[in-house]
Every structure is written in C-alpha cells, then in structure tokens.
C-alpha cells in the first residue's frame, strides 16, 4: 500500500507480520491509549449493572483493541535501504522516520513470550539523534526505532543487514581517531566466546540488591491481594499460636528462604543461558528465559567498563560488568556484559576490553576523616534529638537508636573510605567509589569530554576536592571522591588528553612540596 508520497528507496517496502495483530490485541498495546478517553465517556453514558453489561463491555473492548491493532499494523511499514532505515507509521497523520545507517549505534532483537509463541521478534534500532538535538540529553525513547513483530528470520536478516551496511561505510567524519582492529565488515566472522553463564552463579542472586527487589515487589502485591480478599477465604489462624516466639522465628526464616528463592528465580528468568560472544567488530549478548534478548554492541564504541560489586556480592566474591558505550540509550540494561559472575572472571573480562591502569591509589587520611564524619552526622542528629526528648519527655528509645546509628556510622565510613581510589595508566584510568554498591570504572583517556572539579567549604578546609570525569557513555560522569586537592590537576592531565593541562595552576613549584607531602600520607 505504497502511497505516491512514500520515500523512494531502492529496497522493497517491508511490512511486519500480520500475526502481530493477535499479540497486540491480547496485550491492548494500542487500545491502552484510549483508556483516558473511554473512562469519562463511559461515566457520561452510565451503565446499568448486570452480567450482560460486563459481557458487552469485554466484547467491545476486545473489538476496539483488535481494530486499533489491525489499523496500526496496516499503516506501518519499514524499509532498510542502502543508506538509511525508513519507518512509516501513524493512524491519521503519517510520520516517516529516516535513520541514516551511520547514526545507528546498535540493534537489539528481543522476543517476549507471546512473540515467541507466534515465532515473531521485536527489533529495536538504537540511533544517535542528529548532532544539534542530542546535546546533554540521554532520553532513550526518542533515539530508537521500533519494528515490532517480524518473523525471527527477518529479524536476523534485518540486524545483519543494518549492521553490515553501516560497517561497510567509509570512516565516519573527518578524523576517526583509530580504526581499531574490529572494523572488518565480513558478515561471517568466526565467533569468539567471551563469557557464558554458569547456572551455579544464580546462587549469588540473593546477595544482589536488584534481584532481591523482585520478590519484595511480589510480596507487596500479594499482601494487597490478601487485604482485598473477604475474611471467609483466609485461613483461620489461631491467635494463641501466632504470638509465640517460635512461630515468629519460623515465619522470619520462611520469609528469608522465599526471598532468596525469589531472587534466584528472578535472576534465572532474566539471565537464562546468557552468552557474550564477539563476532567481527561487535559484541553480542544473548539472554533471557521468557523474553529472549539479543543485544549487539560495537566494540569500537566501548569507552570503558564498570565492574560493580555490592556489599553482599563482595562477601561471596561476585561482580557484575557493564560496558560503557557511547551513544547507547538505556545503557544500564543494554550495556551489561556480565550480569552476575565470579569476581576474577569479571575482572578478566574488563581487562580484555579496556587496558588495566594498574592498582588503585588510596585517598589521603583527610578523606577517611571526612567519610567517617559524614557517616556519623545522621546518627549524631538523632542522638541530639533523642537527648532533648529524654530530658523533656523522658522518652529514651530515640536516644538509644541515635547512639547505635552513630556507632554503626564509624565502620560504614571506614568501609566507604576503603572503596575510594584512583589510578592512571598509559591509555586508561580507573576510579572506584561506593560501599553498598561499589563500582570501579575503567575508562579510556580519549573518553573524557570534560572535567568538573567540586570543592565544598569543608573539603577546602581539609585540602580535598572531588573530580568528575565527564564521558559521553554510561552514566555520563564518574566521580573520584575526596582526592587530595593538590593531586587534582595532575590526575586530570594524566587521565585525559593534552587540553587538560589548562587546569594546572601556574605556580606549580609552590605546590610541588605540598603534593609530595600529601602523597606520603597515603
């Protein structure tokens, strides 16, 4: 149904599979948008009660969903031409999006459960927004093209077609810094396996915050359902037995076991048969039990890696690796190179992608004092409030809580201090920060697009400063907390390109002895 106004491409105009209409009807994908209109309309008309009204409502809603799904399928077409991907859609007003191949940063093929039943996949094409519009913004939805519901083979064809066309282009821009070894365009490269998920690693999941959140959310939903149920349906629990300490203990243990099992199941669903392979110039990550995800990242765009190990993960020696890729939307999820695994393997994977800058340099003693001071401040405030309450009202529990918090603050501060560190190497540098979620980011020198140096009044008194390396990848900025103030300029110069010398104070001779002294403190 190519209209006369359609863009003229050399490739054939393609359509998604009609089977997708079924999926969208069942999931109300398009009909969902009508809900805000439908509710006031229904309220206006008014509905009599009774079974027939409900049946009629269900039929009408399904028909509306079917109609909208069919309509949007009918109006959707795409085309992967030699120079660009063109997507045309829209019910009333037609919109055409053209994404030039050199702007495509990655392709993700995912297969949610319903798609898999019907042999369909969803292709997400990640595009860098045009130069002027993209500044400082990291919105993901704007910069991606979604082609929902093509057969699996067509998805694979589209992915390789788009990526190989892009790679075959001549070097983008006037001065591509180094072509790198991974730009070979040949589509049938031998695969090299970087990592493969071992199911034993699922046992780490109960110690990872993110996976624990899944069963907790489930628990929340469950408790709400129990609240809604009529009393007659709930088991009749004898009040006497509930109040014994044995029962409370059993309930707590059962709860913890359920939480752990839930975390393991959650991790298994997301990471099932995870594999990371290198094919030509791309890293390909495949994972998922119900929804199979296939993410492709260009090795040339990897500017660094972040190895994260939370407090719980450190207990068992587990870690997670994220790739820091320029121009990647939804980087936290798509950049995952190893979702969960032994620390040694994570470190080795990181070293394979970015040169290791060597062991971290600890931060000066003043940084330890500052971490402890900050960690106990909250506890001291509670203690002060508790002291006032104890004197005026005679209510002491708050005072006790305050003292406990203050005492706990000391090991927390020490732990946070022990995490701090930075290192510079010939081609890369590293920063580490955090205690509950500790993250060590290793970045290439060329990744840095700016420096931000922050110094609060307290930091100035202590001779400290924090430095943020601004990069166009990952979170956008990586901080080195509480460095010795005199080391800041030297670190910036060693960790980025020559322009950073603009940060070096003019009278470097006066600062030289200072720097040596603060180094010896470490």
């Amino acid at each position, binding site marked *: 149904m190519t209209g006369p106004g359609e863009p003229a491409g050399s490739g054939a105009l393609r359509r998604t599979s009609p089977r997708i209409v079924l999926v969208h009807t069942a999931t109300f994908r398009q009909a969902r948008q009508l809900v805000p209109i439908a509710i006031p309309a229904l309220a206006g008309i008014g509905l009599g009660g009774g079974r027939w009204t409900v049946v009629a409502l269900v039929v009408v809603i399904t028909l509306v969903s079917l109609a909208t799904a069919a309509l949007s399928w009918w109006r959707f077409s795409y085309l992967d031409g030699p120079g660009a991907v063109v997507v045309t859609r829209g019910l009333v007003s037609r919109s055409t999006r053209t994404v030039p191949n050199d702007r495509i940063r990655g392709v993700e093929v995912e297969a949610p459960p319903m798609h898999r039943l019907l042999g369909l996949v969803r292709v997400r094409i990640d595009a860098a927004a045009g*130069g*002027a519009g*993209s*500044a*400082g*913004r*990291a919105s993901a939805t704007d910069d991606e093209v979604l082609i929902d519901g093509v057969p699996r083979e067509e998805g694979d064809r589209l992915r390789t077609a788009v990526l190989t066309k892009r790679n075959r282009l001549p070097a*983008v*821009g*006037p*001065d*591509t*810094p180094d072509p790198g070894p991974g730009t070979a365009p040949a589509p049938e490269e031998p695969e090299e396996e970087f990592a493969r998920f071992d199911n034993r690693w699922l046992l780490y999941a109960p110690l990872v915050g993110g996976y624990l959140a899944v069963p907790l959310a489930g628990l929340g939903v469950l408790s709400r359902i129990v609240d809604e149920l009529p009393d007659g349906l709930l088991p009749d629990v004898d009040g006497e037995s509930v109040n014994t300490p044995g029962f409370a203990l059993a309930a707590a243990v059962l709860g913890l076991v359920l939480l752990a099992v839930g975390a393991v199941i959650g991790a298994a669903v997301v990471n099932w048969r995870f594999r990371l392979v290198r094919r030509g110039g791309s890293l390909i990550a495949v994972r998922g039990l119900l929804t199979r995800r296939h993410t492709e990242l260009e090795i040339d765009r990897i500017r660094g890696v972040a190895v994260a190990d939370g407090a719980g993960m450190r207990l068992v020696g587990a870690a997670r690796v994220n790739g820091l890729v*320029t*121009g990647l939307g939804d980087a936290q999820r798509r950049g995952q190179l190893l979702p969960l695994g032994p620390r040694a393997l994570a470190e080795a994977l990181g070293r394979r992608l970015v040169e290791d800058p060597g062991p971290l340099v600890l931060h000066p003693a003043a940084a330890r004092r500052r971490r402890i001071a900050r960690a106990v401040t909250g506890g001291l405030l509670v203690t002060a409030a508790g002291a006032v309450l104890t004197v005026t009202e005679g209510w002491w529990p708050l005072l006790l809580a305050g003292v406990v918090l203050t005492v706990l603050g000391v090991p927390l501060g020490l732990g946070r201090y022990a995490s701090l560190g930075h290192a510079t190497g010939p081609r890369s540098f590293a920063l580490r920060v955090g205690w509950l979620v500790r993250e060590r980011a290793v970045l290439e020198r*060329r*990744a840095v*697009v*700016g*420096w*931000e*140096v*922050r*110094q*609060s*009044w307290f930091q*100035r*008194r202590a*001779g400290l*400063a924090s430095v*943020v390396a*601004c*990069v*166009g990848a990952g979170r*956008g*900025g990586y901080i080195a907390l509480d460095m010795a*103030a*005199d080391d*800041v*300029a030297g670190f*910036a110069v060693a960790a980025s*390109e*020559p*322009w*950073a010398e*603009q*940060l*070096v*104070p*003019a009278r470097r001779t*006066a*600062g030289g002895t200072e720097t040596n002294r603060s180094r010896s403190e470490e």
Partner: protein
Amino acid sequence: MTAVSSPVREPAWSLPRSAIGLWLTESLISVLMMGVGLGIFLIWVPADSGGPVPVLRWLVPIAVALYAVVALAVRPWFKHRTYRWEVTGEVAYTRTGWLSQTWTLVPISRIQTVDVTRGLLQQMFGLATVAVFTASSQGTVRIWHLEHGMAQRVADDLAARAERTRDQAT
C-alpha cells in the same frame, strides 16, 4: 573563608559588575518570599499552640533575619569574586558557586552545541548565559551572566571553532 590555594588554576576573566545587581535582585526576591512565609506563620499559627511552636516563634525570625543579611549584604559580592570564566584556544573553562565551588572544563573539540539563554531578570540587566553542551550529560559548561553582546560573540566563536575541530571519539 580561609585562604587555601585552590586545587586547579583559576579562570582568567571575571563577570561584569551588573551581575552583582542581578544577584542582589534575586536575593531580594527570595528574602521577600521568606518574609511573606514568616508573616503567614506568625499570624496564622496561634502563639499558645503546644509543642515546639513557642520556640519556633523566636528561632524562625532569627534564621530569616540572618539569611537576609547574608543574602543581601554578602552573597552577591562573594559570588562576583568566585564566578569566573575563560575561553582559550583549546578549552572553555568556568568557576561557579560561592561556599561550595565548581570548576568545569570542556575542550572545544568535544563541544556539541552552544546555547545562549536570557532569563527575565537577566534581560532587565542586559545579561545572558552561554551554555556549552557535550556528549556527556554532566559535562556542561555554563558561563553565567555575560553582557548580551559578549555572550552572543562567545557562543558564535565557540560554535564555529567546535565545527572545525570536532572529534568523533565521543
């Protein structure tokens, strides 16, 4: 403030004096808002209501008065001393803040866009802000309160030079 040497080089140029007028106006507006809030608190919260109210009736006005003195008599001039900027052949560089200070450096080769914005108050004082964006959401240099003509010239110059030296490594 104690005179401890700063961790990095200071940018060379200071802002026009009219920025002090702008900061003073901003302080005045915030003090007036707080004054209105204080008035509402003193009039509508009865003095004999229990809890901490009798103490607060003393503490809050004192805090507001202290804030007013600092905001009107000290802060604008302090800010004029700390806010500095510089554009060299290679970089755009600023220092902002007053108690807590921030230095931001961006190389011209990594600039993606340059914006000039003029707020309502800024227009009254003939000032404008130049914002320099990079591929990083955190690497944004904002040169506050330049004279409008100057801001426009700086922005045009930066944009033109960024176009020539753009570098694809980001």
